[in-house]
């Protein structure tokens, strides 16, 4: 039983990332009708916002320590962060320690801006082009963004740890009445799950309870009519692109302590997130979230040794098998609108 609970937790955790990326993809597809293959790159850029802030906060000047030597036998130059000079040693160290959560403040404006520039500068020129053209141009953009990040930050993963307070693990089993030590789970992964739930709830509340959101939903249902009412729906959709980019970016920022960021991490998530969107139903926001969590959990169960001993390699293909089954039996996905993908 404890093994099953652990895999459910793993699945929810993975599913959180899938759901956040898929949510943004669906928002863009639902509003602008564009299949955005650069969305994984936005997740990756979000992660590198955390890397950047970590590096900025860690910027140091060197002080010579005559008592120690470096690898060439010269007096050791010790790095002293400027943040510690400004705020004092203890507070400075705490600020550096909290670099990942603080990166949220950096990521929101940066990702919004990148989203808006992407949409206005490139993607809007492809609205009337076939989906194949949109996929090609956004895929190309993803590769360009990836290579820029690699040129700046290198190809190796860059460790970006969670704050000390969240670095350990909790005995989740004891909370549920199991034997002590039977279900140990990293604190940050639980934080990530709750953070994702908060962002998802925030996006839904924004669309559900604000006038702006209402107009966007109306535009998603019937763009032409909303336009005929004199509402500038294009401007709102552009902003939604920025919001979708910010959601992907935040997903990336908070994922950095789980997976050390590297320049190709976006591609790894992109393909799976597309499957999530297809399974959930193209254009359906609740479908994307539901499918994200379902497929995350399914993938975790398929990774269990007991399952893999029966069906070797099943963990690698389970998501694609589900996608094939859905496309054959219910092309519009779990919660897709009737008619979408069914023509």
């Amino acid at each position: 039983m404890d093994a099953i609970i652990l895999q459910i937790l793993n699945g929810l955790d993975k599913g959180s990332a899938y759901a956040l990326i898929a949510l943004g993809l669906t928002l863009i597809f639902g509003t602008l009708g564009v299949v955005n293959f650069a969305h994984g790159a936005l997740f990756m850029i979000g992660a590198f916002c955390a890397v950047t802030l970590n590096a900025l906060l860690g910027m140091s000047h060197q002080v010579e320590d005559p008592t120690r030597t470096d690898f060439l036998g010269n007096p050791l130059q010790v790095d002293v962060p400027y943040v510690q000079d400004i705020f004092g040693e203890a507070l400075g160290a705490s600020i550096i320690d909290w670099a990942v959560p603080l990166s949220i403040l950096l990521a929101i404006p940066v990702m919004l801006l990148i989203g808006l520039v992407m949409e206005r500068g490139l993607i809007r020129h492809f609205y009337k082009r076939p989906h194949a053209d949109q996929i090609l141009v956004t895929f190309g953009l993803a590769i360009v963004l990836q290579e820029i990040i690699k040129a700046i930050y290198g190809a190796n993963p860059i460790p970006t740890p969670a704050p000390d307070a969240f670095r350990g693990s909790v005995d989740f089993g004891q909370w549920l009445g199991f034997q002590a030590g039977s279900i140990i789970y990293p604190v940050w992964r639980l934080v990530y799950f709750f953070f994702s739930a908060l962002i998802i709830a925030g996006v839904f509340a924004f669309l559900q309870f604000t006038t702006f959101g209402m107009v966007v939903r109306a535009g998603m249902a019937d763009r032409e009519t909303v336009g005929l009412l004199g509402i500038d729906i294009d401007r709102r959709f552009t902003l939604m692109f920025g919001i979708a980019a910010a959601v992907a970016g935040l997903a990336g920022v908070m994922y950095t302590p789980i997976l050390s960021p590297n320049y190709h991490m976006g591609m790894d998530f992109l393909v799976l997130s597309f499957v999530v969107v297809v399974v959930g139903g193209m254009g359906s926001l609740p479908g994307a979230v539901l499918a994200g969590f379902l497929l995350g959990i399914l993938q975790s169960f398929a990774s269990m040794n007991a399952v893999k001993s029966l069906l070797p390699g099943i963990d690698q293909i389970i998501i694609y098998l589900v996608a094939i089954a859905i496309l054959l039996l219910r092309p519009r996905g779990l919660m897709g609108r009737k008619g979408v993908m069914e023509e």
Partner: protein
Amino acid sequence: MSRHFTRRGVLKSGAVAGAGLALPTYLRAQESGFTNAPTGDTVILGFNVPQTGAYADEGADELRAFQLAVEHLNGEGDGGMLQTFSEQNLDGTGILGKRVDYVTGDTQTKSDVARASAQSMIQKDGAIMISGGSSSGPAIAVQALCQEAGVIFMAGLTHSNDTTGKDKKANGFRHFFNAYMSGAALPPILAEQYGTDRRAYHLTADYTWGWTQEESIKAATEALGWETANTVLTPVGAGDFSSYITPVLQSGADVLILNHYGGDMVNSLTQAVQFGLRDRQVNGKNFEIVVPLYSELMAAGAGEAIKGIYGSMNWNWQLQDAGTQAFTRSFGEKYGFPPSNAAHTCYVQTLLYADAVTRAGSFNPCAVVEALEGRTGGSGSLEGIDSASNEGFLFDGMGNGPTLYRAADHQCFKDVLVVRGAENPTTPYDNLEIVEVTPVEQVWYEPDHPQFAGGDLGECNPGA
């Protein structure tokens, strides 16, 4: 007798001449007796490393070392290990008086891409020797290609037993140590630190290197008395290993052995620490993690997670011998940081090739093979090893102590390092500390050892 030029005749001659010029250089060079025989005053070496992909930083460090080696061979810089190498044949005038030039290729850590890249360097650029690595899959593929094409392959970082085991080739040589040697060096230290009553759980990268390392470490730890709780293959580049780590918690294992490298190792180790494995008590003992193959770049990537974790290495810049110090100084002054063990093996391989050509007095691959096998000078045996196969090219002064390029399988035999993640590093570069220099006798094996069985060196191929 007058000669008449007809239109058809000119066209025919032109076509034949054009076809001749269009032939790959190695086919044109066959009249010299071997592939890409250098004709001018330069000789071209091909350095095939991952310049993109997950091991790109490792490849970049290898490339730095190759460039440094070329500089030293051409008489530039401070000469590095040329001064400490026991064979004093290299004098900074290139190789056999020809200036050394080089071309580079990008393997992307993919076997097919690495092969295509090496092929291009041989056919289009006229490279006479290929070197490089960072992963065993591409290294084995390129070694096979070099055998077919008739050029020498001086392997860079490749740790799979198969490179000089079932996939060994006469034209291929490996200076780097292998999985068997890690298995021979590491377990005695593990027994000393963690005892002989342990249950190990292996997570293994699903390709040639992972399989052979798991086989070697499993055999060695079971010989100590350890039990193997489970062995699980993980896809290369899995990213999130949580689904593979959580079953460890229920397995009753008290040691996790990560047969992972590069980004996979960084992620699996970091995540295992996040899951609290190192804080656990299982079977009344502290839970431990072991990473059999370490690299400095991986250690930097894993950050604090590597503290106190044991592994093995081919070489480390913190060694105190003259060769290591000369190389570290050259590299450090040029690039501003110490070299990795991937860089070291690539630098040494380039110098060893140049020395072999010089001793042989020829670039002919078969003459180079003979020289690297110790058949044209420099032959010797390692002390303290009583074996008929203990013969080949013996050298010293390259950072690993006395080293034998064994003639029987073209594998170098030398001391191996057992290292541990440093608890209190003082600089970003001393995040690993040397625990033991395991003597070569302890990592020696016979060429027909079961873990290396099934291969045949065959005959050297000059390509003609």
